[in-house]
């Protein structure tokens, strides 16, 4: 059976390019602009939801309407988080999401420290840019050697910051070398002014910091949205009975997941904090914070997963008890 499809736009491009690349025909083509009114005629950011309509009918179906509402919500979220300008959000989305899912509460407990860590990376990036600007102003050979030396020192500092345990959460660790991360090459570095790319990356890191700072809330929102989708799917494709069961099971698994995540996160971060104290890690500093973050995340993930399972069983039980 033909049905509505949707995908996430992988890179920033114009609406027309996007439309041309999909290769639409018939009803899907006719409906495309209407279904994608949230992005029609503008530049489509990475991360936007694109809807390809049901080709079997010229009318709009309820699933399409549902996806339109979701797409519009995604669009608003992207705009309000300022994640529209570059592809950073999507490039790191998987990592951010895996971090935020279930771990939300645990990490949320110490997001301020997380944010400080990201800001430290941002400061180093800013320093490199300032250093380069100063160098452009001078231009002599001696100055260039000084510039190389200072830059190497800053790169080393950045490398250390990025290889820190906590930088897994900054979404930068997997990007490979610093040069690759910053999108520059050594050979062309001095001549082509590629350094301008720094500005984008800096703002990208800042945005991630912004996202992660609100981690607890984003994590919860993702949980709620995915549960909503499961309920909706069961309701539209199944019978009334299944819909009712889905409401019980999915709703309860959400309650269980959030409760378990909070429980695991709280205990996990406390226990990890204490273990770190016992292992003579300095208290009150970044190390203690990292202990709490890691403990909270691990506890949150484990607690969330177990809570979801327990919640599902609760939903199933309540459904069985209340069904005639």
């Amino acid at each position, binding site marked *: 059976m033909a049905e509505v499809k949707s995908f996430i736009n992988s890179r920033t491009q114009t609406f027309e390019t996007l439309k041309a690349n999909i290769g639409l025909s018939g009803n899907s083509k006719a409906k495309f602009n209407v279904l994608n009114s949230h992005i029609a005629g503008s530049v489509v950011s990475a991360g936007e939801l694109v809807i390809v309509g049901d080709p079997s009918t010229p009318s709009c179906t309820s699933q399409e309407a549902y996806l339109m509402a979701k797409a519009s919500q995604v669009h608003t979220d992207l705009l309000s988080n300022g994640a529209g300008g570059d592809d950073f959000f999507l490039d790191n989305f998987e990592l951010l999401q895996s971090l935020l899912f279930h771990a939300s509460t645990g990490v949320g*407990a110490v997001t*301020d420290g997380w944010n400080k860590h990201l800001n430290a990376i941002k400061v180093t990036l800013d320093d490199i840019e300032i250093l380069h600007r100063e160098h452009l102003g001078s231009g002599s050979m001696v100055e260039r050697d000084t510039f190389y030396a200072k830059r190497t020192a800053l790169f080393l500092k950045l490398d250390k910051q990025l290889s820190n345990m906590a930088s897994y959460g900054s979404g930068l660790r997997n990007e490979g070398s610093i040069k690759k991360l910053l999108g520059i090459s050594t050979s062309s570095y001095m001549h082509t002014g590629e350094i301008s790319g720094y500005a984008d990356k800096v703002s990208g890191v800042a945005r991630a910091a912004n996202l992660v700072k609100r981690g*607890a809330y984003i994590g919860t929102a993702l949980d709620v949205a995915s549960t909503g989708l499961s309920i909706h799917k069961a309701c539209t494709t199944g019978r009334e009975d299944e819909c009712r069961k889905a409401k019980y099971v999915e709703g309860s698994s959400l309650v269980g997941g959030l409760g*378990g995540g909070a429980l695991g996160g709280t*205990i996990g971060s406390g226990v990890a904090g*204490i273990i770190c104290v016992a292992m003579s890690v300095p*208290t009150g500093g970044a190390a203690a914070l990292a202990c*709490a973050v890691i403990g909270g995340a691990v506890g949150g993930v484990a607690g969330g997963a177990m809570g979801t399972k327990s919640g599902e069983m609760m939903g199933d039980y309540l459904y069985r008890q209340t069904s005639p």
Partner: protein
Amino acid sequence: MTDVDPGLIATIITLSIVITMCITFYIAHAYTEKFERCLPSCVFVEHNKMAFSNAGLLGKLMRCSMIYFYLWVPGLGKKRGLADNAEIRRFPAKLKYLLTIPWTAQIILLIALVLFTQLIAS
């Protein structure tokens, strides 16, 4: 092994977790500063305040968890001079119950959840 419906056990555990966490959140919100005022010369309290004071309610949860563990195992901070044992002994009984009951319940519930999901539900 048992005739009790696993769904019923799951319901009891899940609802208990939700209720316990609600109570925990309230106590962390309303009492964290009161707990900390009773431990004025404990270094770890100052450190925790510094690290988590900007993290809102969740930061308070963290601070309460740390106080709970120090109350539970007073010897922990003694070696490194992080806690004042005399102060921990003087900690008001009413506040101690307010802190220990929900946090101990959390640990029990977590153990119950782990046992249930690993042994019965799997």
